[in-house]
């Protein structure tokens, strides 16, 4: 080509632009089809995701630096107060934990008597949330460990107070998780007080879950704690999910209008725990030991 390239005022049309567009549209549609229907493109996503990782790190850095600065410049008296508080808290937690071990043993014994399958024991690992937003159409978060650390799709994520969400996509060093408040997320729960099972659906608002499938005569009231029932298979049973905050019974509707507030502070968490459920087969010997103790 003789004409100068780039920003010239050459009015010639860019060659084959329409054909290129058509080819790209075709490839896009093919990609979307493969991605949506077949999930064949995990490797592609992982490769590009690894390239994006440094960008995520850079975006995350100022927030991390700010947190670090905050820690580094805390005054001595503040730290002492904090240590005092933590010590008191640890004493309390330890006391509760002592009871928990004996309760666990008792539970295992009773289950053995009933000949029921032993409960699954969970392993947890702490992950930090990276300060990056992701998908604008979802409530989600990005954590700083990925498939390299054994994270898998569908894995449950909790924080100190309750269930946060589950992993939907694992990269090598990061993973994306969907929050329980997302409109596409539904979670099998049961009422802790009476074992009533239902499903908690995300409302799209960060501080509300809906329970749309409860009949008007269901035994549920404000203040009830909802815990995971373990029925879906994704979440281990017994983790707190939300507290019911309003029950509206509408006589002409088949279902009551029930909303709940998530126990976990979904928009404030900085650290979360990922749960690995150890298969119960591996747990059997442990039960045997408990029985021997008797």
């Amino acid at each position: 080509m003789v004409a100068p390239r780039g920003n010239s005022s050459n009015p010639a049309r860019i060659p084959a632009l329409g054909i290129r567009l058509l080819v790209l549209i075709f490839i896009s549609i093919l990609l979307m089809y493969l991605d949506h229907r077949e999930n064949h493109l995990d490797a592609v996503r992982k490769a590009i995701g690894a390239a994006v990782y440094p960008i995520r790190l850079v975006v995350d850095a100022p927030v991390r630096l700010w947190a670090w600065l905050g820690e580094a410049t805390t005054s001595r008296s503040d730290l002492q107060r904090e240590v005092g508080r933590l010590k008191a808290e640890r004493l309390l937690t330890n006391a509760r934990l002592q009871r928990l071990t004996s309760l666990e043993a008792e539970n295992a014994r009773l289950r053995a008597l009933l000949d029921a399958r032993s409960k699954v024991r969970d392993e947890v690992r702490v992950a930090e949330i990276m300060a990056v937003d992701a998908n604008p159409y979802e409530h989600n978060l990005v954590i700083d460990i990925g498939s390299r650390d054994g994270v898998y799709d569908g894995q449950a994520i909790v924080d100190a107070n309750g269930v946060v969400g589950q992993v939907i996509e694992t990269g090598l060093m990061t993973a994306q998780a969907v929050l329980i408040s997302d409109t596409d997320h539904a979670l099998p729960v049961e009422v802790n007080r009476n074992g009533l099972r239902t499903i908690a659906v995300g409302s799209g608002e960060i501080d509300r879950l809906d329970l749309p499938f409860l009949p008007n005569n269901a035994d549920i009231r404000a203040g009830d704690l909802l815990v995971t029932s373990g029925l879906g298979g994704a979440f281990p049973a017994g983790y707190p999910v939300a507290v019911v905050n309003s029950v509206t019974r509408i006589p002409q509707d088949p279902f009551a209008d029930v909303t709940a507030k998530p126990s976990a502070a979904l928009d404030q968490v900085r650290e979360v725990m990922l749960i690995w459920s150890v298969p119960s087969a591996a747990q059997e010997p442990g039960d045997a030991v408990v029985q021997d103790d008797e």
Partner: protein
Amino acid sequence: MSRDSASHRLPVIVTFVVGLMLSIMPLPEAIAPFRPDWLALLAIFWAMQLPRTWSVGSAWIVGVILDVTYGTLLGQHALGLCVIVFITVRFHLLMRVFPLSQLTATVFALLALYQFLLFWINGVASVSAPLVSYWAPVITGTLIWPFLYMFLSGVRYRAQARD
């Protein structure tokens, strides 16, 4: 020639990387839906200014990267971006002589088309999302365009003056 295209590429790549950072920067929950489509705005600007080096192909690659970063359907943002870049490249001579007000109106239309494509693909793939997450970025993107335009023009002329 290669020196020339390299000096064209670097500022563009840098602005795209910064744009990607802005796209994933954490925002408070209340204003997060109003985050402008930084990459769409950048793609429109560069396609308008350098239609030979930054055309549908590079827009598509940027879109795929955005899809992976967002975790959306692979190809969704890529499709949206390459369509609006195609229109921009097609009319780049016209758009260059538009006064800023008219150009901003054009950008509004392009952004709306972009969001419509995303909305439509989400509909086909049955991804539900509140409507504000589609249309708020169009408004904020349009409002931010004049400033971004002036800033990027500055970047561009400074990059050229250095040669």
